[in-house]
């Protein structure tokens, strides 16, 4: 090893001459000349290559490439299956060229060094597949590893035999890895344009069913037929047009979006409120108008996303604001669904008052609030890990109670309650699963309520008390906050918001079974909250749109229906990546970002304070 990269432990870099103002891009580090192309940190490359190769083999043996191969991104050129095999070499190739920008550490201008390092690392990652091809050809891997199908071998070899597979994957890996390295070299504008193009292509392929559906509603099928191939995926001409269009757009819009956002953030007082109000109204208008043009499929998807937004907003109050890690949140969803079913359905085994949905909703809210109190009362006396485990238990207990023979006279046991009528809205409309558009509007209305509740409560005496409890429970209590009451309140508010979702769910699906309320639902809601950005309303909505809309919920298919088998795997991978790269979530709350990057921010603030105190305080 002739060179030490910053992340490797090694001798400290030689002291640099004092940094001159404006010398470096961000004023923090000094630019150094590019490193020589072949003086690589081979050990690092080998390590990352090996990790990537293992990842590739794992992906292949999970049968993901074969399953996803049916979904074309660009017709005849790239399928989702092959895409799943080039993501890792690209990431590894790019990662190898990563340098930390730190004060006092020389920052080498990227160049051939990065490309060659990326290519080498990418070849290793791709080599994982070469190795796999050889293993498949020579040994019987089906015995211990049952998931993969023999089609994998053909897929890896492009139907040309093992030797070809070995060579082609080394080559593909090297090429993709080099591209990853190249991403470090090209100027940031080019990088942004490139990423926009790639994401546009991927996005429009993913959203295919959605856009087709919308286009049909608006009567522009002809345009869609030109972009999308009949058997799925973009047409080549369509892909080129999209890439070119988005590339030009990204080039023209460079910095503008960020600038506009900065301008809005810089606004103060009423002007800022007006800008935010405008944004909210515009979003609301789109959400109200869009479903009118959309078909069943899109509305079904939107309704599912909305249901999870509702659940996630409820859980966000419990976890995000009050800091109570509730792993059994599905209990309230279940109680909401079942109580709505019992109160509205004629087929309910024991009592069947057959109330109209809106009247039943009052009962649902009261019942779920009561259950929230009952579960909450013992649970919130615990703290931290113990509390999480106990909520997990209660979530299961509720499901098992609905399943039990003991209560089957009331709730139908594993048969559940079926034939639940839709929700009648003051005689105006009938909301039922057969009409996803009306379901979506109902969900939208309740989401609006939930957003309002979250927003108002966060800025109230109760919300501040929740935050204080989250920060330091002992001190909160010593400052006169009745922590038991306050936490119980968070539990109940969260439960009531969850019950809305449950009541809509039972009217939408028309039947409730204990199997709809598995522990998995709790986990998925929690993942949505964490992934989106804990404590932030917009983040929670975004998380739900990405996870539930694209990947699909526990039972609900998302846009990428092919993923359904690998949903949990991808959830897990996304969550791990998120915790490493961006622990504050997709769209974080300001507070949470501060919390997680406290040290850096505190340092900055301290430095500022030092100079300030020197000027100000000693004179007084």
């Amino acid at each position, binding site marked *: 090893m002739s060179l030490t990269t910053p992340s490797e432990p090694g001798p400290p870099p030689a002291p640099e001459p004092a940094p001159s103002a404006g010398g470096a891009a961000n004023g923090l580090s000094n630019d150094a000349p590019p490193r020589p192309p072949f003086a690589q940190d081979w050990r690092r490359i080998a390590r990352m290559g090996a990790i990537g190769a293992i990842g590739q083999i794992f992906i292949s043996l999970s049968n993901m490439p074969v399953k996803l191969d049916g979904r074309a991104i660009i017709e005849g050129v790239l399928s989702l299956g092959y895409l799943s095999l080039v993501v890792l070499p690209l990431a590894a190739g790019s990662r190898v060229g990563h340098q930390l920008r730190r004060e006092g550490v020389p920052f080498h201008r990227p160049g051939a060094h990065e490309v060659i390092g990326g290519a080498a690392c990418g070849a290793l990652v791709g080599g994982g597949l070469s190795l796999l091809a050889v293993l498949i050809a020579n040994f019987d891997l089906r015995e211990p590893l049952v998931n993969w199908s023999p089609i994998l071998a053909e897929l890896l070899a492009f139907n040309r035999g093992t030797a070809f597979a070995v060579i082609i994957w080394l080559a593909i890996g090297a090429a993709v890895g080099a591209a990853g390295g190249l991403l470090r070299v090209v100027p940031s504008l080019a990088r942004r344009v490139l990423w926009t193009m790639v994401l546009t292509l991927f996005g429009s392929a993913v959203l295919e069913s959605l856009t087709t559906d919308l286009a049909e509603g608006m009567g522009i099928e002809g345009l869609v037929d030109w972009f999308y191939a009949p058997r799925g995926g973009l047409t080549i001409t369509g892909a080129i047009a999209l890439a070119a269009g988005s590339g030009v757009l990204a080039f023209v819009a460079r910095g503008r979006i960020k600038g506009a956002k900065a301008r809005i953030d810089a606004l103060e007082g009423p002007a800022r409120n007006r800008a935010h109000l405008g944004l909210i109204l515009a979003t609301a208008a789109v959400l109200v108008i869009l479903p009118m043009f959309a078909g069943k499929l899109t509305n079904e998807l939107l309704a599912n996303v909305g249901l999870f937004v509702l659940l996630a907003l409820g859980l966000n109050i419990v976890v995000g604001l009050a800091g109570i890690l509730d792993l059994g949140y599905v209990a309230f969803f279940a109680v909401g669904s079942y109580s709505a079913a019992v109160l509205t359905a004629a087929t309910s085994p024991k009592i069947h008052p057959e109330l109209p949905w809106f009247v039943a909703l009052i009962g649902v809210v009261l019942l779920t609030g009561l259950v929230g109190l009952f579960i909450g009362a013992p649970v919130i006396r615990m703290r931290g890990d113990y509390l999480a485990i106990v909520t997990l238990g209660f979530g299961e207990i509720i499901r098992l109670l609905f399943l039990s023979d003991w209560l089957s006279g009331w709730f139908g046991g594993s048969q559940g309650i079926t034939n639940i009528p839709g929700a009648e809205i003051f005689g105006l409309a009938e909301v039922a699963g057969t009409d996803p558009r009306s379901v979506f509007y109902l969900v939208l209305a309740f989401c609006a309520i939930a957003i*309002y*509740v979250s927003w*108002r*409560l966060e*800025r*109230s*005496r*109760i*919300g*501040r*008390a929740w*935050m*204080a409890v989250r*920060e*330091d429970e*002992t*001190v*909160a*209590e*010593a*400052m*006169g*906050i*009745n*922590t038991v009451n306050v936490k119980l*309140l968070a539990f109940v*508010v969260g439960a009531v918001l969850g019950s809305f979702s449950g009541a809509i769910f039972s009217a939408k699906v028309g039947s409730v079974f204990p199997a709809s309320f598995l522990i998995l639902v709790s986990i998925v809601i929690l993942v949505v909250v964490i992934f989106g950005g804990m404590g932030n309303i917009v983040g929670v909505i975004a998380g739900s749109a990405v996870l539930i809309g694209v990947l699909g919920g526990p039972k609900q298919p998302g846009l990428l229906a092919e993923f359904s088998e690998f949903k949990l795997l991808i959830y897990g991978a996304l969550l791990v990546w998120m915790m490493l790269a961006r622990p504050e979530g997709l769209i974080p709350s300001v*507070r949470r970002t*501060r*919390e997680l990057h*406290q040290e850096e*921010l*505190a340092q900055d*603030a*301290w430095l500022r*304070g030092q100079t300030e*105190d020197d000027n*100000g*305080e*000693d004179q*007084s």
Partner: protein
Amino acid sequence: MSTAAQQPILETRGLGVDFGGLKALDGLDLAVYPGEIVSVIGPNGAGKTTLFNAITATVAASEGDIRFEGESLIGLDPNRVTSRGIARTFQNVRLFANMTVLENVMVSQHCRTRQSVFGALLFTKAFRDEEAEITERGKEVLSFFGHRLVGYRFDQPAYTLSYANRRRLEIARAMATQPKLILLDEPVAGMNPTESAELTGLIGRLRDEWGFAIVVIEHDMEVVREVSDRVVVLDHGVKIAEGDYADVAVDPQVIEAYLGHGATA
């Protein structure tokens, strides 16, 4: 003592705290009178902070009684003790670090405010009035510390404050609970001489301008001499001396507790 005729605001009688056989406090009798500043001193492990914890119900007293304004505090939850009118600070600063400076003093008025979920949701006049009121009182309390915690600092998260300012904010937070008695646990620990001299002055002003009775745990003898009307010395959970600073400072038992046996010889 001129205050002897008055009824004490805080009184402990035979207060004992037991940590599984270890007597952290043992039969402690202590009285604090309205408008008085009492210092509690003693070597490490003497039971000073335990005394505070017992008064604020953070730890349970195993024997004896604590009376505040003539009523017993035994068996109350910490938040009830605070709403009766006792506020405290912590030895190792414990702010709500991710809440803003203003929010810190707003949230500690929790037990003085009434508005619940419905007020917040309906945005009632009562809710808005109460919000305005606690914001106002919060700012008033913060302005007690001069320019340090006001202006742009209102909206800064508490952890960005310098160490001395964090200590000041802790006191402000205690003041915001609208107490009659404030317990200060080593308020000047870790401060430089200028800062601690300034804070010493502030402790006096807390009594004079705000009318609080104050109990202060302090190791800095300079501060103790400056602020205290009376000094109580603890050692191994037992009160070994009480009186004004000049008397206590020459008490052989106190010197022995601090310097060890034989130091008085």
